[in-house]
């Protein structure tokens, strides 16, 4: 999904650049709180890891293949602020050294693959860990799963607003969302496997899942042991709904903000929307019905934020349901 130069018009590229720069600036301040003096090496390592696994292509149905985005993984391992920084650096390095993603599209790329994936991933992660305490791996799976289609929908939306080609946003969103839901499953599996493995041997490395330290033992000359030191206090249970809401609202705000911000640069799109009265029906129809890009010739354009917001909402509801199911199963077991 690395957007090259020339994909978006200049206004969109620059506006996205402003959004990205603002986001990164906020994260630069927040990151220091997350990791103190180890920020740079830790983030660098996660960035390198994300970069490396982005080269792992896995097959998705119908002859396409996807690769890891890594936003959710980064957020879970080093926290959301540092996570955004990691993604920004990955994209920067890819753009500058590997010509992967255009230099003028850096803002778009950071917004879509950094800000959106991290926010969506982290929001879902907090929601699920808040609902079912200790299910970090499940939460990681869902977070990663959701982050991919959300990012794809954001891309579609942005392209519809400020892209250099006219498209039918509904069909493209449906197609993009569908394919990326599948890619999201791959993303979710790899993320869950990685987080699970790290959790098993270095729980201290998973942000927010701080482990319980055993007390140390001192051994005398006779071989007898005396315990010393007090175990560290257990981390406070993450607040259930509030962080999630913040995350979810954040994602929606970013999308909505982008929509209104770019509306002016794309009058044709707006006019088309204005003409199209029954757009909600149409949107639902497209989201669920027309995977095969059947009627692209006929439609003039589809609701702006609506497709995106519906997409986001749908995904959140879905995750909520899955999390709820997971919790009730958990309770039965206990």
């Amino acid at each position: 999904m690395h957007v090259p130069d020339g994909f978006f018009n200049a206004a969109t590229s620059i506006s996205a650049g402003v959004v990205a720069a603002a986001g990164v600036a906020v994260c630069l301040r927040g990151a220091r709180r997350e990791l103190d003096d180890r920020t740079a090496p830790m983030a660098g390592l996660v960035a390198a890891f994300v970069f490396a696994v982005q080269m792992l292509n896995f097959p998705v149905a119908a002859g396409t293949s996807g690769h890891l985005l890594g936003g959710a993984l980064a957020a879970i391992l080093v926290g959301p602020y540092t996570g955004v920084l990691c993604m920004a650096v990955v994209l920067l390095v890819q753009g500058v050294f590997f010509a992967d993603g255009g230099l003028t599209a850096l803002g778009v790329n950071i917004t879509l693959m950094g800000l959106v994936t991290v926010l969506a991933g982290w929001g879902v992660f907090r929601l699920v860990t808040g609902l079912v305490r200790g299910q970090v791996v499940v939460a990681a799976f869902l977070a990663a799963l959701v982050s991919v289609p959300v990012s794809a929908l954001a891309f579609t939306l942005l392209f519809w607003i400020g892209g250099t080609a006219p498209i039918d946003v509904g069909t493209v969103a449906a197609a993009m969302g569908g394919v990326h839901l599948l890619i999201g499953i791959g993303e979710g599996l790899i993320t869950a496997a990685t987080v699970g493995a790290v959790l098993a041997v270095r729980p201290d490395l998973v942000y927010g899942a701080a482990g319980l330290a055993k007390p140390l033992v001192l051994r005398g000359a006779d071989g007898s042991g005396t315990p010393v030191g007090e175990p560290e206090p257990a981390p406070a249970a993450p607040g259930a709904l509030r962080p999630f809401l913040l995350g979810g609202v954040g994602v929606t705000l970013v999308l909505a903000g982008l929509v209104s911000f770019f509306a002016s640069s794309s009058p044709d799109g707006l006019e088309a929307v204005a003409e199209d009265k029954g757009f909600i029906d149409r949107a639902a129809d497209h989201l669920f019905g027309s995977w095969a890009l059947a009627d692209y010739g006929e439609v003039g354009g589809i609701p702006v934020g609506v497709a995106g917001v519906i997409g986001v909402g749908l995904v959140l509801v879905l995750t909520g349901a899955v999390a709820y199911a997971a919790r009730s199963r958990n309770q039965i077991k206990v």
Partner: protein
Amino acid sequence: MNSLEVRQLAYAYPDGTQALFGVDLSIARGERVALLGPNGAGKTTLVMHLNGILTAGHGSVTVAGTPVRKDTLSEVRQRVGLVFQDPDDQLFMPTVRDDVAFGPANAGLRGEDLDRVVKDALERVGMLDAVDRPPHHLSFGQRRRVAVATVLAMEPEILVLDEPSSNLDPAARRELAEILRSLDVTVLMVTHDLPYALELCERALILSDGVIAADGPTRTLLSDAELLARHRLELPYGFAVPVL
């Protein structure tokens, strides 16, 4: 004032494995001390505390009178030079030259002085020819030598070496001994090579199961076959402690 003072040091790795169970030792300025012990005894773990790479879970470490704490780390690291057991952990720059220059450059050295220090350190370990090669393209023994050079270039007061002679060819092993003897610094050397310990160090410590099990003149310890055997140590076949 002692160069190194360790009091009741205990440490557990993040995964819960406790490696040190209350280590006590002190080493005077200018002493050369061998640290012996079986695999997994905690030698490397102990050594990593001496310049604050690991932080004591309990107890204290004092280097030349300065306690090792967050706020004293940079001073401590200036004084203690540590050669890691695995040279790949130690070498990280794109060329051998940059790697050896890294420490002195951080200490403020520049230009010709820097070049001279780098050349000197590499010459001592016989790796001057490789100065422009990337470290990860060297043979294992060559990497170990460069690792030693990076630390020599910093001219530390206290030199801590974790199995420096392993993977060195026999001549390099002897040359390293000569270098260490020629320096006027405190040396703590982890080794499984008991003849080497005897050759270089007057005093030896045995670390076993995370505590110091013996401390005394190397010659005395190595003559006590029973003590050695208790800690999985033994003199190699064909070797006899030379009579003075």
